[in-house]
């Protein structure tokens, strides 16, 4: 055996360098992800509050979850949110992607412009919406001017109108985001198939159904799961549109708004907020796992 083991300092360095490189990220993983996850579960069984508390209270928080009318409202809002967003944000961005796919002059400008609502903060967009939809805003003002309505439509002060306003905002803001995902997927649809179909006399509509849609079927599934998850996690849109109130009687809130509400102030209750967080985890974990699997398959 002529092979000699690496000298000691070298071996040390081989062990040391990788860990030196990953140490910051590993620390972040532990401190800001692993530990808070464990702590969420622990806190859910206590009455911890911003000031004091912290005694073990068994299943009290979960019993409260089951009888919480606000949570029931929030879950219903989320389901409606999801059911409306799902078809719109699965289909419209695909059509948009097809529109911007062909590299005609100026297309880079249009792609960037269509992505603008995505890079704007949800707060900015919701503030614009709340001006446009307010009692004296553009939509009501114009409709009254035309004489379609006599009284302003209470877009921001009626529960379901508020939810639907937030949905329209979400769809509008999400179009460009999912468009980009489809755009990237369209690049993988075999061009030969399009050409062959065209030679066989298939028009654009038939090519869409018979070539494009099957080609991006996995992406459509991926997008729809992403839309579903983000609908369950909605916060800023509803919060800002309702001016932090959650609408009349707080009935237009989302689950995340409830979590935020219990994070501070007089009603602050870390224990109950943690139980709500676990509810959020339970309703999102299925789609999230599916998402991860779809991603790995796509990769």
């Amino acid at each position, binding site marked *: 055996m002529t092979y000699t083991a690496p000298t000691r300092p070298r071996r040390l360095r081989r062990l040391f360098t990788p860990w030196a490189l990953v140490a910051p990220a590993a620390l972040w993983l532990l401190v800001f992800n692993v530990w808070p996850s464990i702590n969420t579960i622990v806190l859910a069984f206590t009455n911890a509050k911003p000031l004091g508390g912290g005694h073990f209270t068994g299943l009290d928080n979960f019993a409260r979850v089951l009888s919480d009318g606000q949570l029931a409202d929030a879950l219903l809002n989320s389901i409606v949110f999801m059911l409306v967003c799902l078809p719109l944000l699965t289909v419209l961005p695909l059509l948009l992607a097809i529109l911007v796919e*062909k590299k005609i002059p100026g297309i880079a400008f249009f792609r960037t412009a269509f992505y603008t609502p995505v890079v*704007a903060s949800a707060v900015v967009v919701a503030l614009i919406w709340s001006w446009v939809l307010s009692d004296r805003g553009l939509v009501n003002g114009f409709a009254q001017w035309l004489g379609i309505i006599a009284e302003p439509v209470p877009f921001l002060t009626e529960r379901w109108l508020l939810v639907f306003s937030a949905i329209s905002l979400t769809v509008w803001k999400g179009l460009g985001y999912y468009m980009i995902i*489809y755009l990237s*997927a369209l690049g993988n649809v075999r061009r030969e198939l399009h050409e062959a179909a065209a030679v066989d006399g298939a028009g654009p509509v038939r090519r869409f159904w018979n070539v494009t849609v099957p080609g991006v079927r996995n992406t459509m599934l991926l997008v729809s799961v992403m839309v579903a998850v983000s609908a369950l996690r909605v916060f800023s849109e509803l919060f800002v549109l309702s001016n932090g109130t959650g609408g009349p009687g707080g009935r237009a809130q989302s689950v995340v708004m409830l979590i935020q509400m219990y994070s501070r102030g007089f009603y602050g209750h870390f224990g109950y907020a943690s139980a709500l967080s676990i509810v959020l985890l339970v309703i999102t974990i299925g789609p999230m796992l599916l998402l991860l699997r779809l991603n*790995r398959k796509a990769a």
Partner: protein
Amino acid sequence: MPDVTARAETGHHAVTAERPGPKAGPGQGRHAGRARRRAGFGTAGPGELVLRYSLLVLVLVLLISPFLWQLSTSLKSLHEDIFTGAPSFLPEQPTLDNYVRVAETIPVWSYALNSLIVAVIVVLGNAAGATLAGYALARLRFRGAKLLLVGFLATLVLPGEVTIISQYITVRGFGLADTLLGVALPGAIGMLNVLLMRTAFQAIPQEMDEAAVIDGATPWQRLIHIGLPNVRGMLSVITIFAFIGAWDDFLWPLIVLNDPENFTLTVGLQYLNGTFTNNPRLPAAGTMISFIPIVILFASLQRFFFRGVEEGAIKG
């Protein structure tokens, strides 16, 4: 809307979130070539061109006009009636008055500075932390690597909002409640970004590394001379989105910050909204102060982003 500071506002982050797939393997560049070839297929006739451009302009109006409307409102003087049924799209006498007055109402410029401070910390943290860890996970073998990787991947199925309360308690435990550092810290190394950088480093052909090893290069030298020049695309995508994510974030700073002095721009704007329902010109000016910098930033860096899209940095 999924997000990169991994702070789960995840809206945009999720864009890049698409591919935590651990096995991306080399050769993502292929898509670029394919995309280029596609452009030639069925060159558009004049009729099709007219149709395409009309539709493009229609969508453009739908997606951009609300911003322009807000910009216009922010430039309208107090004398101009903005509540009529058919208000003018262009301000009659454009004025910057509202920008001055919004700054007298809330310290909007120091809020902008606060947002900038948070965003810069997040960008620097991610550029350094995610790059180093991504490189080690992709290119170096060490004990515990598998376990770490599982840890990073596991965070992806956990919506950020689920742990946000406990994260706040952690940050408060460090004495960082109500501070900008407390806002910036948790997102300063995004777990997703670590995975994205790892994927980018994996795409570098193994032979390049092996040759350098034979030449006696240390891991650091290999990272700097072989690794970094080959992951610029991904690095620019994650830093762009780290910045945008931190600048736009709302829920987390809303939870962490209490003192109006420390507010970031998004939190301050929401506060402004509640106060001035009678004069929408001021919130309009405030939103433009938040919106314009991020649009300029994105517009000037968009080619890196869209190149990343073509190279498969974002994938469905």
